[in-house]
């Protein structure tokens, strides 16, 4: 494979955060998704985390942490004015009733049929689901973030997931270091390409057909 490695992790998160619309209730998964809240965007976002925090703000600097308050990733966040706290059953009532406008999840694999996998690695007996299955099944939009290939270069964007899925047919946006993709059933639409990356490079690194629009845009990094 030749060409650029594409976007850095924060840059992928930045691009995803630009999809958030004014007034959206946003749930960010652990890992790269959390970085979306670092992106400077001028939309009014309400961050929800599984443990019942509605309206949290930036992570507090060391020494200033409120030890009673963490987000879903265990980070000691702050609260914005107007925040509210509910218990776990009410927090997932919010999720299951479709009030989360978007969940952004870090995942292992995405398929062009809209499936994705993020809770169980090959050969493991158990798994780590957390709130991902509830979010994936019920959020209005499911965005996923992942490195385009495994460490040994195998594709993570596939025709069908090889790992056990988290939810079926729910993904509407896939963001990787190489580009921004929309699952279209039997193929991925390449919505935008990372700077310095080529379409051939993406095709070689992807386990599913790629549709390339005539007016392919390049991702604008911040």
């Amino acid at each position, binding site marked *: 494979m030749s060409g650029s490695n594409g976007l850095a992790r924060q840059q992928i998160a930045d691009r995803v955060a630009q999809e958030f619309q004014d007034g959206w209730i946003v749930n960010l998964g652990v890992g790269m998704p959390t970085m979306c809240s670092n992106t400077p965007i001028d939309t009014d976002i309400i961050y929800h985390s599984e443990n019942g925090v509605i309206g949290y703000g930036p992570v507090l600097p060391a020494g200033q942490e409120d030890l009673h308050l963490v987000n879903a990733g265990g980070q000691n966040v702050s609260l914005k004015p107007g925040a509210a706290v509910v*218990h776990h059953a009410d927090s997932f009532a919010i999720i299951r009733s479709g009030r989360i406008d978007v969940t952004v999840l870090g995942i292992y694999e995405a398929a062009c049929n809209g499936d994705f996998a993020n809770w169980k690695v090959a050969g493991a007996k158990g798994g780590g*689901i957390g709130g991902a299955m509830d979010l994936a099944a019920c959020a209005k939009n499911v965005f996923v973030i992942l490195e385009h290939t495994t460490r040994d270069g195998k594709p993570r964007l596939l025709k069908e997931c090889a790992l056990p899925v988290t939810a079926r047919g729910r993904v509407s946006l896939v963001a990787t270091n190489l580009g921004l993709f929309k699952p279209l059933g039997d193929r991925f639409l390449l919505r935008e390409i990372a700077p310095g990356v080529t379409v051939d490079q993406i095709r070689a690194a992807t386990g599913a057909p790629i549709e390339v629009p005539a007016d392919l845009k390049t991702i604008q990094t911040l």
Partner: protein
Amino acid sequence: MARSKIFGSFAAAVADIPDGSTIAFAGFAYPGVPFNLIRALLDQGAKGLTCITNGTGGAGADRMPDIGMLVEAGQVAKVVAAFTAPTRASDRIPLTRYVDEGKIEAELVPQGTLAERLRAAGAGIPAFYTPTAVGTELAAGRETRVFGGREYLLEHAMPVDVAFLRAWKADSFGNLLFRRSQRNFNPIMAMAARLVIVEVEEDFLQPGEIDPDEVHTPGIFVQRMVKIPPAPEGLWPARRAERGAKA
């Protein structure tokens, strides 16, 4: 006239928990975890326990008492959790080895389903339908049903014998306040349990000192409470820097 709910020690509060009990442990990350009660249960030694918890812990150098320690002490027969393996293949948690060797049964439950099954137990609802996990390995061979054109999975209530809670404030009747994300599973585990034991951070208040409109868990759900002594006798989570300093 009623017997006091305030116990003098964690050991006394957990002394009579029998082998084979089903125990729910509140907490999400650090906030709301009943560290002191877990340590007392490690000392008490009850065996064959079923542990209901979001995760079993066990990672990190500055480890506080967690379900993983109960696992390692041979006290656990079964774990019901939203995390029964680490999310990264490179991480290790104590539970994994015991599950791999078949020594402990692990039931993996999506976090929202875990919360709702506990809530159902506390609400006298024996079973309900949820959209979560439909079409996944967790739904394989299980009963589903279509409502309004969408497929849902049947889930059952999860009653527990004992719940271990950690609260911010309490009055002597057992009305509880949780601070910020400390609330998490605490109120619903209290409702799902027959015996609710709470470790409390602040000094006990008199009945009437908590506004009835602000109560998070009404005292009718609470049987036993213990005030957490100052560190080092009592267990308190520390800031990251302080944890680093200790390690």
